[in-house]
Structure formats: C-alpha cells, structure tokens
C-alpha cells in the first residue's frame, strides 16, 4: 500500500479566479440547443410554416367567400398552430436532455441544476413571446391584404387586452407542456398527456358538467382550459382570475414543482 500523504494546501484547486457561470450564458446555450439539431430546427420551422399556412388559408377562404373578419380574427386563428406546437417545443426542451442522455454533460458542466431548469424555462417563455410577435406581424399582413383584396374595409380592432391575453395564453400553453415534461421526463408520455389535456379533457369536463350538478360547480376551479377561455376575448373578471389561478395551480404549478424536485434529486444516467 502506498503512503497517502495528507493533502497539503498546495493541492487545493484555486477557485479565486473563476467566476460561476453567468445565468445569461446558460440561457444562451439552452436557446442554441433548441435549434441546433435537425429535429429542433424542423419543429421551429413547422411552427412558423403552419402558422403562416393557417393565415393564408383563412385569408383565401374569407376573401373567396366574402366573409366579414377583423384583425383579431386573424390573430386568434393562429392560436390553432401555436397552441399545438409551442407546448411540444416546451416538452422537448426538457425531455430531450433525458432521452438523448445529454443531461449528464449538461449537469456536469453546471451542477446547479435549478439554474439549468430556470434557463430552459426562460427559453420557453422567450420562444412563446417570439411566436406571438411573428403571429402579430403575419396577422397585420393578412389583414392589410384582406383590406385590399376583399370589398371590405380592414378592421384593426387590436387592444392591449387582446395582445396581453394572447401572449399569456401562449406562454401558459408552453409552460403547461414544460410542467408535464418535468413531471414525466419522457417525450411521448408528456406529449400524449398534453394532447389529452388540451383536446380530450375539455370535452370530458363538459360532459361531466352536463351530467352531474356538483361537477358543474367545481369545473371552473379545476378545468384550466376552461379558465383560459375569457383570456382569448379579453373578458377576464375578478372571479375568472381566481378560477384561473386555482386551476393553473393544479395543472401548472403542482406538476412543475413535483418535476423539479424529481430532477434535482435524480441520478442522471
């Protein structure tokens, strides 16, 4: 057996000249990870292309059929593509680190795991806001074209309330996906859960409310989709906000908290 001398001070790492990795750098790296793989890039492109396609189809239909629409109609129809794909983006942001096992490298370069999650969270919000900006621009173009092509006057009925509600809607969609992903740490499971939550559950809740009296009274408190309804047309009242907060707590905060606790503890394989 070799004598293992007690380590002297000379062997200690000198950390005085290294500063901790700044948070902004982590955010930039996480942002880069969203588009530097073919899958990620295609998801971003699909979101943009689908949004544009939705608008073009809408524009051609309303012009051909001579329908009466306004700026807000154009904007809200993009909700279709964005509410569908932004959450998927939010999910893959987190789960791809697990399925591709890159979490091992990520967490060994930055062991402060909550910071990594926070950086991903921020990237998610940033992408959602960017998507809304693109939607606003596309809607402006479409509405202007509508004014030119159809016999109708273009109606610019855009209020701060609408835009704020729309941004909130998209950010929440993205974060719900993110929360499900944190909870399950598995892409297919999180995507299925999100799709069921956003397409299937509202119908079931509606059915339950129609059949059962007491369920009808608790529904606003537990149905997050339902609670977001007034956001779309900017008619949130005080009570709506309370419903929004409570159901949001159930669907957003709880899974996120459980998920983050799990990630912080997890053995990364």
């Amino acid at each position: 057996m070799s004598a293992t001398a007690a380590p002297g001070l000379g062997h200690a790492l000198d950390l005085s000249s290294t500063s901790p990795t700044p948070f902004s750098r982590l955010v930039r790296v996480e942002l880069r990870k969203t588009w530097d793989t073919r899958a990620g890039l295609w998801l971003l492109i699909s979101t943009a292309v689908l949004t544009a396609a939705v608008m073009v189809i809408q524009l051609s239909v309303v012009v051909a059929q001579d329908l009466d629409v306004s700026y807000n109609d154009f904007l809200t129809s993009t909700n279709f593509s964005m509410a569908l794909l932004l959450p998927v983006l939010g999910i893959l942001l987190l789960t791809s680190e697990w399925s591709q096992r890159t979490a091992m490298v990520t967490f060994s370069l930055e062991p402060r795991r909550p910071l990594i999650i926070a950086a991903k969270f921020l990237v998610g919000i940033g992408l959602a806001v960017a998507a809304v900006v693109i939607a606003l621009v596309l809607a402006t173009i479409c509405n202007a074209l509508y004014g030119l092509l159809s016999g109708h006057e273009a109606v610019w009925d855009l209020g701060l309330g609408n835009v704020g509600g729309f941004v909130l809607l998209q950010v929440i969609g993205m974060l719900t996906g993110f929360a499900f992903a944190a909870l399950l740490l598995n892409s297919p499971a999180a995507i299925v859960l999100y799709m069921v939550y956003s397409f299937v559950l509202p119908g079931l809740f509606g059915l339950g409310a129609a059949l059962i009296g007491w369920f009808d009274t608790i529904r606003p408190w537990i149905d997050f989709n339902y609670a977001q309804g007034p956001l779309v047309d900017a008619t949130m009242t005080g009570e709506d906000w309370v419903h929004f907060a409570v159901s949001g707590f159930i669907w957003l905060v709880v899974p996120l908290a459980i998920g983050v606790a799990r990630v912080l503890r997890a053995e990364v394989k």
Partner: protein
Amino acid sequence: MIQVEGLTRKYGTFTAVDNVSFVCQPGRVTGFLGPNGAGKTTTMRVMVGLTPPTSGRVTIGGHLYQDIPNPGRHVGVLLDASAQHAGRTGREILELGARTMGLSSSRIDEMLDLVSLSRAESKRRLRNYSLGMKQRLGIAHALLGDPSVLILDEPANGLDPAGIRWMRGLLKGYAERGGTVLLSSHLLHEVEIIADEMILIGHGRIVAQGDKKSLLAGAAGSGSTFVTALDNRQLSDALAAKGFVVASAGDGLRVETEPVEVGRTAAEHSIVLTDLRAADGGLEDLFLELTSDTQREVVA
C-alpha cells in the same frame, strides 16, 4: 487532487460501491482498474455529482464538485462518449461546451486538432461517428476548459492502436505539467503502461492500491524471468546448478528468480542471451487473483 473518503453507494440491497477511499495525487496518472461491473463508473459519477452517494464523500482539490464554479474549467469529465445528442454535429457539441464555459470558438479548433478529428469529420452528426471517433470527441470535450483535473471513464475504449498510444502520451504530459489524471479501465495492460498509481477494485471494494512496483512486490508469483539464449540447454544447466527452478517456456526458459540473477549466470558462463525480461504474469495473476471472487469467469 481527488480525495475519496468512505464512499458507499447502494441500489436497494445491492452495494455497487462499498466504503471506497483513495487519493489521486497531482502530477501522477492514477489508474482505476477492475472487472466489468466492479463499480468504477459509479464511483466516478459520484465524483461529479451525477449520482448521489449513500454515504461518504468526494472532494476535488478540497471542494465538493457542486461547489466548484464553472467546473468545466477545473475538472475535465468523460463518462460516456455516447451520451450526446445523436443529431448534433461533433463541432456543435464542442461549441455548446465552449459556450457554457465561456471559451472562444478558436479553442474548439485547437481541440479538434489535438484529437485528430478533421474539419470535415467534425461537421458530421454524432450518429454517424464510429466508436473511436466518439471517444476522441469526448476527450476533446473533457480537455476543452484546460482543466487541472481529468476524470476519464474507459477513455481507451474503441481507440485504434495509434490512438491509444497518442492518448497515453497526452495523459502523461498532462500529469507531468502538474495535472491530476484519473482513468478507469478493465484492461490491466492498458493501465499498467500509463499509470503511476493503480487502484484495483472488485465487487465495489478496493482490493489493492499503490504503484506498480509495490503492487508487484506483494504479488504472488513475482520474481520470475523469461529468458532465451542461443544455447538454452547450457543456460538451463548453469541455472539449475545454482539452485534456481527452471522450466522450459515457449522458445526459452522460465526461471524462478530475478532477471539480474539470470543475467549474472549467463555472463559467468559467457552464454549469449537473445531475450531477457521479467515474467509479466505477476501483475496479471495478481489482478485475477485479487478480483477472482468477483470475476465472471472462473479463473483456472
């Protein structure tokens, strides 16, 4: 330097790492040797905070890994070269590492040159890399931040012979400049050539540690010599006359004594030797012996 103190990691009732303590000194290459499933990777994962220990702790340069700011600049880690996004290019993988550590992109080209990955190869996606190329990329990633401590899990896996020789030189140079190097392997010969210190682990427990010479000194079957002479017969008789045990082995003889005694005898009788060396089986035997109750195959 790396200090492991009383490290234990259990999975349910199974103990993967059992009260392991050792020290890796700066300026030396420490080889971490053990058969498959001995607990090498688990120990290394605990070092970098990816696996929480059941008990015990590991400090690197006096700090817990979690407490090292920007750890990539101090500790280079390669645990599994395949644990990267298959859809990223090699260059992009280094780019992400460099950005996280706050390094300039020129560092990436330096590292690619160092591990002999060409520009064209670096633009391929990881799923199209061969095992050895992934390994080179992983080593480049570990060296990116110019760390003073290197933790490498089976770095020679998949490398071609030239690559293994290159890596040996690289790590030796690293240690000579004062770096601390810990590398694991399940191949004795690999570690034997490169490591100054060796830690043998079997079944989660350390079975021996020390430098090569002190390990050999304690090993059963040490002090044998292989020798080949122009006239093996004459040499054999001369050695037997001195009371050494001689047996024929291949083209030459195996003598149960130090090479120096064999050389002296040959010189005394003016016998021409064509080969003289210590029978290397000592360490191999030691390795198999020490880990035999943990070996998958029964050692005859």
